């Protein structure tokens, strides 16, 4: 009975743990970083989540999170929504290593936490006829640290996707490879090529505590008229 009363009083007294605790109460070794970055050729959006055993972390008390991309510092905005708190940056086309630094006056700082954005490229919109192949061309890459996927969507076909084994800068898709949707026929198609990369590192390699997991995509989309 006494335990029940205690449980009842705790929320009333405001003793529940905060959803986004201040960083001053959390050791650097308890921080896990998750980053997602997407570049559509015009705009790059980066979202960084910093998690701890007691929830999303709000940086306070002089702690400062920074992002460097394309050789330039990118201002981070704090975003709070129904899912918690995260940090977001938006800037133009960029590729290569993106770097997170966490500077802490009262605890260990983290610098040079890097994740990889695949190389930027341009995708050419092909001219096609109703039955001809769809020949795509783009700037070839070395494909060493990323995967490449061609995807084609339209109202008259089932979504088509093909993972490429090499990034040669060209790929041709035959209409016969599409599965018709509904009545089939011809319709405008959205053709995209996506280069994707994941990075998974330990923040402290000696203690094996703390981590960064990042997913990045460099995607281009063109719309082509596909019809008689």
């Amino acid at each position, binding site marked *: 009975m006494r335990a029940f009363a205690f449980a009842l009083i705790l929320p009333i007294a405001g003793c529940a743990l905060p959803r986004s605790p201040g960083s001053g109460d959390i050791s650097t070794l308890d921080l896990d970083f998750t980053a997602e970055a997407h570049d559509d050729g015009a705009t790059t959006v980066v979202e960084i989540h910093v998690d701890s055993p007691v929830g999303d972390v709000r940086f306070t008390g002089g702690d400062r999170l920074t992002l460097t991309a394309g050789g330039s510092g990118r201002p981070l905005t704090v975003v709070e929504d129904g899912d918690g708190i995260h940090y977001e940056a938006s800037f133009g086309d960029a590729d290569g290593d993106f770097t997170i630094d966490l500077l802490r006056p009262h605890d260990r700082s983290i610098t040079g936490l890097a994740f990889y954005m695949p190389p930027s490229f341009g995708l050419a919109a092909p001219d096609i006829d109703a039955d001809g192949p769809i020949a795509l061309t783009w700037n070839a890459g070395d494909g060493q640290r990323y995967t490449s996927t061609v995807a084609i969507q339209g109202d008259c076909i089932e979504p088509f996707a093909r993972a490429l*084994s*090499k990034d040669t800068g060209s790929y041709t898709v035959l209409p*016969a490879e599409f*599965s*018709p949707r509904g009545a089939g026929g011809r319709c405008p198609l959205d053709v995209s090529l996506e280069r994707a990369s994941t990075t998974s590192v330990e923040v402290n390699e000696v203690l094996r505590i703390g981590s960064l997991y990042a997913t990045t995509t460099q995607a281009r989309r063109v719309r082509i008229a596909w019809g008689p």
Partner: protein
Amino acid sequence: MGTLKWWAGIALGAAVCGCGGESAPPTTESVALDLLNLTADVKSNGSVILASVKLFDAEYQSVTVAGGDRLLLTAGGVEEEMVPFDGDYIEQIATSATDCAIVLARGDGARITSEFPLPPPFALYAPADPASLSAPFTFTWDADPGEHETRIEVSSPCFSLIQRSLTGDPGTYTIQPADLALSTASYAGTCDVDVVVTRLWARGVIAAELSPSDPVFTSQVRTTRFSASP
């Protein structure tokens, strides 16, 4: 003690006369026709039709052809009795015909015929020029506008298996360098490349006397091999 002997006698008798509760395997004589299921894999390479048939009852137990019944493969005017093999019945007929049927010939002379027409035959051609794995290579076959699917499988010790499924039948397909996940260990010298093109459709119809079934796929399969340089 007398009662014990009595029970022992019953148990011994049951074992000797095979009354242990196990029922005899189902046969074409014991299973009602409308509960007899037939599935078949019928394919042609252009010169031989190969058929594999499985019979089973409503409880998915394999059914054996027994008594005076026989299971027959007919194609191109030839009829051969199918033979049991590893739980199935198989047979082949050397013919380029596309008419094919599986017949359950009953002891009383009745013939229960399931038709398995094959898709149009075709020839498959390897790349005309010497193939290179660093450039696109194209293989071709006789296109057909009919409503069938086309499946392609390209394999080699030098790269990972490539599989494609085409809704139509363009009669040509090109493997591009971006398709090739090269295996560096076996990538010295030339590579053998095997291409299998399968034309298939769901036009097989199980005899109305048997348990109802969806249409069954039949196929024409062609293979070719060529060498490709790095």
